[in-house]
């Protein structure tokens, strides 16, 4: 009997042990892609193209990363706000000017929100805009070359976060200051915040032919933090919506002090009205200096101009320009659905997702259903403008995109999930965990009138155990989810460049159709171009030496240079003579205190060099161009400052 009990006890212990081990095993195991056919859904065969381009902001990398979806292949990192020694961007004489600002040469920034140019509120693949948050600027990338074509500084701003969202036909891109500051900036006590600190909303006009930007006008706004934004569309065309936080107007310990009110605001801007006011001459001339840097593709040179003065609209003098909609609590996203009727606020600390109705907002304005005002701006009654609330969505709702099939997808940072809900009934229909702590999400075209509602891409702030570890510093990650069915399906995740804050996606053919393969050398109007090897030469003027050099497979002309002296300032104007797709040449000199040049076919770039010591300096091609790439090299002889070595040069002599 006893032995039976004993045997039973051993059995139970065994079962328990196995159970515990099994439980350990399970709990220790990571979540994997759920469905077996996930691999085939993201498989893009070698040599085949992805269906979509995804442009992810690089965050603190300052750049933009272009990926293919659904494969998640990194196609290219586009240098924008950070210098890029890899190709000499920000180092070559031609590109240095792109970094000019009223604070001098700025080698780094924090790039946040990519925005594709749009036609009729559908991405059109011409340009990609992106803001820099630290030193307020907007850049425009030309999608025929994937290069930064323009950088415009935003004056009277303390951190360009709610930017560069575009109107339906890219008439304007906007810039709203995240940090309120004295406008114009001046030396005041920080604790005079409420008295002296203001926000600004900047409307930047975009030329539809060249894409060139310039500041049309600014609106002086209450001293809040302006976070994100979207333009209206369809019925709400002509309006812009900005989320605000820190309406408490705290200037210290914001995590507590800016989280006191139950509701902050979504600021609605009637920009058509603003245009009218500007036309009527209601805008005041305010100070504000800003740099406008445009890369001239013809001369292949950044043109940098300091501009002065802006047109400023003061809301109290412009009735009907601004309205405040109370929004719980510290909202991040201000996202407009494809119909243009609904504006979704993503209250980071809210327990619901509020959805505002544009038509109700119009009625409330008409009926003057106001709940007081802030600095002369009417505050609309919450109940009069709300269409519905998504109840118990998750924790920390941030940002919403749409699939064009009647559903919305909201990222939730704290509960680390995407929540799918139905527009109209406001009911949650599905949830998908994010690994981990999702910030933004992106459906290609998901903020436009016509989303390509096939995938949602989660951009996650924390990566932890998702990939092979790389020490304490880990890349962030993106996560691709199939949204074609009722239930979201995780397909793929991949590491990202920098910290993507937001992304844009577009059907690939809209971008591929106007891709450039080379720069036509006949169109190259660079002042120091060398279009033929026989024109290669070295010229001295005082201590300034200019080397007019060509690169072609597999030699430089000239490749032997003598007569350079210590104390000279030497400019190597190197032209890649190739007109053959993807045949690039590089240029680097031993000891050069500069980054290399990478020259695309037909391009001229300049390497500035100040040799410090006499001797022989090899230089070579850094981009494996041909079978004899390794032979593509030369020598520069540097003589003492007082030497009598004449300038001489040649190739093959």
């Amino acid at each position: 009997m006893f032995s039976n009990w004993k045997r039973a006890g051993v059995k139970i212990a065994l079962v328990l042990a196995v159970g515990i081990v099994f439980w350990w095993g399970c709990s220790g195991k990571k979540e994997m892609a759920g469905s077996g056919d996930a691999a085939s859904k993201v498989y893009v065969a070698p040599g085949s193209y992805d269906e979509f381009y995804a442009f992810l902001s690089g965050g603190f990398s300052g750049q933009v990363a272009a990926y293919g979806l659904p494969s998640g292949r990194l196609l290219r990192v586009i240098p924008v706000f950070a210098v890029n020694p890899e190709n000499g961007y920000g180092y070559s004489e031609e590109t240095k000017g792109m970094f000019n600002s009223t604070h001098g040469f700025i080698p780094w920034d924090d790039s946040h929100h990519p925005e594709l140019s749009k036609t009729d509120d559908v991405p059109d693949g011409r340009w990609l805009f992106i803001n820099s948050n630290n030193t307020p600027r907007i850049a425009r990338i030309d999608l025929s070359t994937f290069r930064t074509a323009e950088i415009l500084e935003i004056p009277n701003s303390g951190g360009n976060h709610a930017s560069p969202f575009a109107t339906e036909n890219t008439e304007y891109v906007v810039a709203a200051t995240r940090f309120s500051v004295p406008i114009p900036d001046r030396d005041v006590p920080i604790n005079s915040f409420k008295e002296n600190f203001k926000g600004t909303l900047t409307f930047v006009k975009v030329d539809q032919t060249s894409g060139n930007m310039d500041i049309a006008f600014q609106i002086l706004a209450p001293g809040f933090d302006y976070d994100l934004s979207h333009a209206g569309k369809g019925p709400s065309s002509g309006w812009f919506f900005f989320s605000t936080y820190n309406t408490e107007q705290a200037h210290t310990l914001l995590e507590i002090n800016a989280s006191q009110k139950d509701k902050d605001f979504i600021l609605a801007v009637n920009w058509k009205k603003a245009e009218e006011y500007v036309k009527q001459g209601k805008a005041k001339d305010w100070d504000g200096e800003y740099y406008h840097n445009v890369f001239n593709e013809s001369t292949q040179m950044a043109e940098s101009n300091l501009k002065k003065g802006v047109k400023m609209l003061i809301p109290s003098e412009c009735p009907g320009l601004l309205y405040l909609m109370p929004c719980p609590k510290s909202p991040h996203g201000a996202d407009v659905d494809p119909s243009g009727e609904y504006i979704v606020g993503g209250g980071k600390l809210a327990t619901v997702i509020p959805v505002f109705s544009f038509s109700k907002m119009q009625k409330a304005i008409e009926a003057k259903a106001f709940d007081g005002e802030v600095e002369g701006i009417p505050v609309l009654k919450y109940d009069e403008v709300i269409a519905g609330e998504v109840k118990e969505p998750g924790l920390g709702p941030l940002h919403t995109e749409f699939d064009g099939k009647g559903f919305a997808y909201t990222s939730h940072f704290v509960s680390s999930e995407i929540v799918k809900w139905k527009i109209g009934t406001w009911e949650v229909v599905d949830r998908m965990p994010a690994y981990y702590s999702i910030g933004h999400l992106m459906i290609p075209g998901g903020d436009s009138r016509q989303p390509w509602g096939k995938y949602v891409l989660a951009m996650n702030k924390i990566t932890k155990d998702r990939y092979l570890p790389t020490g304490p510093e880990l890349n962030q990650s993106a996560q691709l989810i199939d949204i074609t069915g009722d239930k979201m399906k995780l397909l793929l995740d991949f590491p990202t460049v920098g910290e993507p804050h937001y992304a844009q996606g577009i059907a690939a053919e809209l971008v591929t159709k106007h891709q450039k393969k080379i720069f036509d050398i006949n169109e190259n109007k660079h002042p120091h171009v060398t279009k033929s090897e026989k024109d290669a030469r070295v010229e001295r003027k005082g201590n300034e030496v200019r080397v007019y050099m060509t690169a072609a497979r597999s030699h430089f002309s000239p490749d032997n240079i003598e007569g350079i002296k210590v104390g000279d300032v030497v400019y190597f104007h190197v032209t890649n003579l190739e007109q053959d797709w993807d045949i690039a040449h590089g240029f680097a000199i031993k000891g050069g205190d500069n980054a290399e040049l990478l020259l695309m076919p037909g391009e001229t770039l300049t390497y500035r060099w100040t040799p410090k010591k006499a001797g022989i300096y090899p230089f070579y091609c850094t981009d494996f161009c041909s079978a004899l790439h390794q032979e593509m090299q030369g020598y520069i002889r540097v003589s003492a400052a007082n030497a009598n070595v004449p300038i001489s040069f040649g190739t093959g002599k």
Partner: protein
Amino acid sequence: MKRQSRILIATASLLLIGLYFTPLWWIKLDAPQYPEGLGLYIWINQITGENPNDLQTINGLNHYIGMKHITPESIPELTLMPYIVGFLILSGLCITILNKRNWLAVWIGSFLIVLIAGLVDFYLWEYDYGHNLDPNAPIKVPGMTYQPPLIGTKQLLNMRTTSLPYIGGVLAGLSFLLGIVVWFREKRANISTKDTKNENVLVAH
């Protein structure tokens, strides 16, 4: 000549006008790193790339094997050919208008000479480019020459080289064939009229 024959000769002559507007020959180069291919068009008066920069690229690549630069200006035949073709067109039209059957054989004969001379000349240029190589070229493969085929495909190092008549070449061929056809028709017609004449003589007796 019969009315039909005259029309055909006129057509044959007019077809040759196309040679001023479309290349005679097409040389296509495929290589592992050129999936999109490189191509050359040979016209009666010029050599061009299939894409705007192909000629420059091909010349650039050819310097590795020591091949001379293909510079259309240095090929005198390209200056001569438009006149020769012009002569064929005009003389063909003359034959039609003046209705000179006897000249037809001369026209076909000279056309044949132009065709053969053209092909031989083309072959010789190809031979020269393919064999007459710079002794200091970086790439020297013992026994290897780089003459492209006249018609057909040949692997030359990493380049698969295909040479084919292009629309202009086909037009020239068609024009020549039309000439031959007319010549045979006229010959037969000639014989049958002679026969009828003989019969008439017999009947008369």
